[in-house]
């Protein structure tokens, strides 16, 4: 198991390097770079100064290596410095946003709690909705509940989140003024009243994301339960006279959860991607909204860094899913 983990970790390095190169080159070699957006009225020597100040006159390879060094060495070092008061980074230049001239990671650090609160709650809620639906659908296969669950999953797959989100806004914020349409980022929870307000403003974005996730996960749960229901050990357990409850909720459920747990882990990066839409729709000031903002402002360092963080999430959770599968299922041996 340990060798497998180490091997996978080593394999992740070239993957991440490839992805970072693709992102960097795509953004860098594109014709619509901000160099071309400096107004023509700016005198040539000032233009030259601006380009030099942004570091854009260096060759591509130099800038790529510099960016890698900043991402993998300067930024973590600065983070450790901030925690322990050391001076590992030694005042080296960090990745700066072209919009605000401040470090990109500071901005990400400010925004990530918003994303995590909304996305995390949504995913948790989605899983909590999906598991019971999946279990009961499989236990009563082809019942009306199962049919309804299938329809729910099909609709959940097909209706894009931006449309569920708008529908929820129209119904629950415009027609029935129960929830606010926009998310107030400045709200801090101090007492009961602000807590209620926070819950109310989180309700719609969380529900939007949760429904989309619940659809997919409930299908996996159902098919995994169905695979296990027909196994011999289930018949044995029933023959021993165990209650139906113990058979289904202990014996079958535990074995069925193994593949579902990996699916849940694999879904985490996707929900961050989906959060880009939800954050923009509801005005949640998270990293997805930051990405769109940076794209519209042609802020290349921020775009590169955020896109690469999304890629790191994908690789990381793929790895976590594989390791979890090996840990949970003793039949899987990677070595």
């Amino acid at each position, binding site marked *: 198991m340990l060798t497998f983990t180490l091997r996978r970790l080593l394999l992740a390095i070239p*993957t991440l390097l*490839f*992805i970072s190169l*693709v*992102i960097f080159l*795509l*953004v860098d070699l*594109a*014709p*619509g*770079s901000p160099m071309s957006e400096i107004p023509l009225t700016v005198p040539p020597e000032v233009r030259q100064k601006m380009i030099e100040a942004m570091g854009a006159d260096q060759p591509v390879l130099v800038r790529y290596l510099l960016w890698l060094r900043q991402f993998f060495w300067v930024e973590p070092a600065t983070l450790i410095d901030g925690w322990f008061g050391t001076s590992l980074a030694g005042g080296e230049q960090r990745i700066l946003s072209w919009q605000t001239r401040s470090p990109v990671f500071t901005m990400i650090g400010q925004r990530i709690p918003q994303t995590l609160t909304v996305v995390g709650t949504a995913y948790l809620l989605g899983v909590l909705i999906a598991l019971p639906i999946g279990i009961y659908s499989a236990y009563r296969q082809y019942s009306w509940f199962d049919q309804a669950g299938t329809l729910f999953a*099909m*609709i959940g*797959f*097909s*209706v*894009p989140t*931006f*449309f569920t989100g*708008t*529908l929820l*806004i*129209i119904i629950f914020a*415009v027609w029935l003024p129960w929830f606010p349409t926009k998310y107030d980022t400045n709200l801090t929870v101090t007492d009961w009243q602000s807590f209620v307000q926070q819950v109310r403003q989180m309700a719609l974005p969380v529900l939007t994301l949760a429904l989309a996730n619940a659809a997919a996960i409930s299908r996996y749960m159902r098919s995994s339960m169905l695979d296990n229901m027909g196994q011999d050990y289930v018949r044995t357990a029933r023959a021993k006279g165990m209650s139906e409850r113990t058979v289904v909720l202990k014996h079958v459920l535990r074995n069925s959860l193994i593949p579902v747990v990996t699916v849940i882990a694999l879904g985490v*990066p996707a929900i961050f*991607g989906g959060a*880009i*839409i939800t954050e*923009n729709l509801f005005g949640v000031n998270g990293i997805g909204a930051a*990405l*769109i903002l940076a*794209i*519209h402002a*042609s802020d290349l360092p921020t*775009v590169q860094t*955020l*896109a690469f963080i*999304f*890629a790191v*999430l*994908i*690789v990381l959770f*793929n790895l976590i899913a594989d390791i979890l599968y090996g840990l949970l299922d003793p039949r899987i041996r990677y070595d």
Partner: protein
Amino acid sequence: MTDAAPAPRPRSQGRAIWDQFRTHKGALFGLIVLCLLVLFVVIGPLVWQPEKLRVAEALKVRNLGPSWRFPLGTDQLGRDMLYRMMQAGKVSLAVGFIAMMIAIFVGTTIGVLAGYFRRLDGPLMRLTDMFLALPLVPLLLVMVMLFRDRIAGSLGPETGAFVLIVFAIGITSWMQAARIVRGEVLALREREYVLAARSIGAAPRRIIFRHILPNVISPVMVAATLGVAEAIITESVLSFLGLGFPPDFPTWGRLLYDGLQYMQLYPERVLWPGLAISLTVLAVNYIGDGLRDALDPRIRGR
């Protein structure tokens, strides 16, 4: 129940597939809905010609509700919403189908090469894995943002946006098809008939086109159907985030995005395009589901 037919003549394969497909209620529903939507966007503009309004006249008919003159009302510039829905649907469906074709072409090529030639398997599958690890939505957004103006300059804003988005979606969604095809080809190339073909000296090219490709058609068709749904959703996401098609050459996603500002006053302007996208994707998904059952000879009742 189809077996009960007393006809001694064996049924053709297409007939058998159709009979199985018909038993899937959802798939039949999907097919009917999709046909209606295609008719709506293709025949619709021929039947429904909106009156040509001058600017001064159009200003008077802004933001109207549904009426006989404008069945879906008008938008903030006095344009007929029904006609815009038809135009937008044409583009949305075209993007879905063409992007799917690009993805399936690339995916099948890579899958066949990786499955048939052992030397290529490792590198090509590594490449597929790396593409799977790319964050697609951010990447697509970046591609559209960076290349939009350049391509619009050389091809014109409408063709430019179309080519760019179709191409971008196509080359970022071939990975599933490649994996499915590779798996099938790996199993097929060990079969006796492939060995027989090789033993009489058939070239790899001939074996692939004559013996392997016809046998991977069914999974590819299912993947293609689901790919259309995926492509339509991806395009509408781009348009929804304001990085898709220009407003005078809209898709359903773009109409929804434009309607968002007026959502509180005129919610139907968001509802119609949203419903159209959802219905299309639902129909296509159901067709894919039915096709999977119909094309699988183990399920198909003989």
